[in-house]
């Protein structure tokens, strides 16, 4: 037996999370290095920190960086820490290599900005503010998804709910313009109608998927298709014949906060739905994790039968959550027509509902995680817009892709398998 024993052990390199990240880092480092050597060494990226993008107020901070040297340095750092982490050293070195990993992670986004703006000035404040602004519908949409899915009902209809809300919110505003209501009141009413139309469509989703136990994906798809048809019909009938444009929701300045230098003006003087994103973040987090309703919702989404044996009405809980989800999605929809553009166009939500769903999943069904994921996607959007404005030495599409690629690596490596609420998608049938 001992002879067999000695033969049996064959060394194997185990593929671990850390090794996946390390390998990705190594490849990225090599790529950055190679690209950086192609750059003109004289190029300088100037990071500025201005309070507005208009450039009327004086620049507060300027940080010039030699692009090529910076990238060579970062590339080298990535290669080194990728290599060290591939080895999976133990003991004291383990902490050093993990520290390097975190440092590399923190450098990702600044590096993208610096590489993208090679040879130019770029205003960091604007990028941050713009990322947050573009993240608004994604984050709010993701919260809508959390409300629904935490209770065990799949909601792929966020896109459709948003579109309905964008349309009917705007139609409300459009018709109220003719009356002598003050603009603010009309806008408020429009947003409220947006919320309610989202909620109403959610009731259809609840009716199909809770009462009739239709497959929840099918029900959601039906709503998405319905939304495209009905909203474009409404637009053609009522909006097309006229000059359909309306004032966007006005800016609000938060006292004290908006006086903070550099970021105050750019972030804390903003439109109402933007601020609602933070309100909804706090609200969703508190309700889900610190109230009776949240506890029951999570129980119903995970193990409805257990909740039932404790006297909790599973389907009632689901109905209410689906309705709230629809209203939150309605808020995200109102952002498109009332806050961002002041008009309504066919299919103007452009798949944001699905990206919101992705943000929810990346955030592992938690409000904070979903918010972080939405910010990453918002950043990617804003980067795309900026790259189209400044000419860059890198392929634009590649840089736009980077945040998504980073998300994938982070998901595969750090976070691991996302586990949805266990009962999601399953109608509850009492025995």
């Amino acid at each position, binding site marked *: *037996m001992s002879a*067999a*024993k000695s*033969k*049996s*052990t*064959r060394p*194997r390199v185990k593929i671990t999370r850390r090794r996946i990240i390390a390998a990705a880092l190594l490849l990225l480092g090599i790529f950055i290095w190679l690209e950086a050597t192609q750059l003109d060494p004289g190029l300088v990226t100037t990071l500025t920190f201005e309070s507005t993008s208009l450039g009327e107020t004086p620049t507060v901070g300027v940080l010039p960086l030699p692009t090529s040297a910076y990238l060579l340095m970062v590339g080298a750092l990535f290669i080194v820490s990728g290599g060290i982490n591939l080895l999976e050293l133990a003991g004291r070195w383990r902490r050093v290599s993990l520290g390097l990993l975190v440092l590399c992670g923190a450098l990702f986004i600044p590096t993208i900005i610096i590489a993208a703006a090679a040879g130019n000035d770029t205003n960091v404040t604007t990028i941050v503010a713009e990322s947050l602004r573009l993240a608004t519908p994604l984050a709010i949409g993701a919260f809508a998804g959390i409300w629904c899915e935490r209770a065990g009902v799949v909601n792929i209809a966020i896109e459709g709910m948003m579109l309905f809300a964008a349309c009917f919110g705007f139609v409300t505003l459009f018709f109220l313009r003719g009356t002598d209501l003050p603009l603010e009141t009309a806008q408020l009413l429009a947003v409220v109608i947006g919320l309610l139309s989202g909620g109403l469509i959610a009731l259809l989703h609840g009716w199909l998927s809770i009462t009739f136990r239709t497959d929840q994906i099918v029900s959601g798809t039906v709503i998405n298709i319905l939304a495209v048809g009905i909203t474009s019909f409404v637009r053609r009938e009522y909006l097309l014949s006229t000059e359909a444009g309306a004032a966007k929701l006005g800016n609000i300045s938060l006292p004290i906060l908006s006086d903070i230098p550099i970021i105050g003006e750019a972030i804390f003087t903003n439109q109402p739905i933007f601020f609602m994103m933070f309100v909804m973040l706090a609200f969703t987090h*508190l309700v889900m994790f*610190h*109230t*009776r309703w949240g*506890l*029951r919702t*999570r*129980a119903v989404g*995970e*193990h409805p*039968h*257990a*909740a*039932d*044996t*404790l*006297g*909790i009405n599973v389907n009632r809980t689901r109905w209410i959550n689906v309705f709230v989800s629809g209203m939150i999605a309605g808020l995200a929809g109102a952002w498109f027509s009332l806050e961002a553009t002041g008009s309504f166009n066919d299919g103007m939500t452009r798949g944001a509902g699905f990206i919101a769903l992705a943000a929810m999943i990346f955030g592992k069904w938690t409000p904070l995680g979903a918010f972080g994921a939405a910010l990453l996607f918002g950043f990617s959007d804003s980067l795309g817009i900026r790259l189209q404005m400044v000419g860059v030495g890198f392929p634009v599409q590649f840089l736009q892709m980077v945040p998504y690629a980073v998300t994938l690596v982070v998901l595969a490596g750090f976070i691991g398998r996302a586990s949805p609420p*266990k009962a999601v998608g399953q109608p509850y049938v009492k*025995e």
Partner: protein
Amino acid sequence: MSAALEVRGITKRFPGVLANDNISLTLEKGQVLGLLGENGAGKSTLMNMIYGLYKPDAGEILVNGQAVEISGPKDAISLGIGMVHQHFQLVDVLSVTENVMLGNERTRGPFLRRSLARREIEALSREYGLDVNPDALVRDLPVGVQQRVEIIKALYRQADILILDEPTAVLTPQEARGLFKIMRALLDRGVSIIFISHKLKEVLEICDQVVVLRRGKVAGTADPRQSTEQSLASLMVGRDVILEVDKDSATPGDEILGVFDLHVHDDRGLPAVEGLNFGLRRGEILGVAGVQGNGQTELVDALTGMRAVDSGRIVIKGQDMTSASPRQITERGVGHVPEDRQRDGLVASFTVMHNLVLSTYYRSDFCDWIVVDDRAIATNAHELVERYDVRPPIINNAAGGLSGGNQQKVIIAREFSRDVDLLIASQPTRGLDVGSIEFIHRQIIRMRDAGAAILLVSSELEEVLSLADRVAVMFEGHIIDILPIAEADRDTVGLRMAGITETAQPA
């Protein structure tokens, strides 16, 4: 003094089945009422009616002498009835505290007061010796502790009538003894308990009164002080049952299975099997005893090709099968009765006849090039259903609709009817009634006597001791000891299961 709970003439009909037929029973205050019966005898149906999950078609329920209407679990809870279900009703991603308070939350303003519930759990835990950490996540807890969480849930709601639905089915003998201690503490404080079980020994040990159900009717009541296991078993099944396994001593032949320095990891990537070495010969049964979660599952997975081996070798009939696929292992003459019969043993939505050929459908007997020969499959099924006594013997029924015992018979029929040299049976009788257990044990002995090598993994110590020719005890991924059956008594093996060996003995 009126009884804690009385049930009079309860009848419940499901489509096509009379689940409960005019059942009456009485639970006296501060006593344990044992409820015995085979699978499908109507025990759980009756309890679910008392707990308000089903509505009886006829009959009445009295709590403390008062006729009551129980239309949902909420009513039952407010009447002081608590139930520990056979399948725990716990949300495993929530903490113990959250599970206990769910549905009965204390709040300040809109916010949960977790600390209040936590203190109450700690108090209950101390009072009854339950030993539960209120902040642990339920999914991280072993089954025995999860059960105590269920008991706390009932006590937190001030239950004084506690229904325990097959509480010992998932416990080790040690854990079961712990549960009995807790039950006695509850009785001392005036709680009345209904105890549902298959295990006759336990019923005799703990109960004050026993009611036996058979096919939805009360078959009889018994006083445990004047009953024997034999008499209860006959009452339950309606005929005489042979409880002792009757077998000759083994005549081991050549080695079929060899395991050398096997290392396997579990789902979380932690080492679960650490350096196992053992051999198994033709015509013998090696029983693997041990508390669940000591690497048995991973060992079986590795042997059947369902889990990657980290290092070491598995040799079957002289050929290295270390990283072979399940199909290659099956083709090598290995039969597998998996631990989780519903997940790994059957395709619940397939018919009985198709489930019977899951490991052979591709062979020329049942398959003509690419066309499956349903007629041959049906013939095969008719024969096996009769030989293995699957009830009802309808081969076009979905396998998922059969009772647990009959599902297991389908698996046994499939695996035993092939040409098998090595049989790996994991928890083959878990959750089954005495009639089915008797049948399955006889089949295993028959296979051994026909010359197969059998690896029997079971957390039922009784089962291992009555079937095995040698007993291997697993503890924390190691085989602590392999004893010939003559030296393996309950106490010796029990100590090994807790990881204790006589270190004083000279090597």
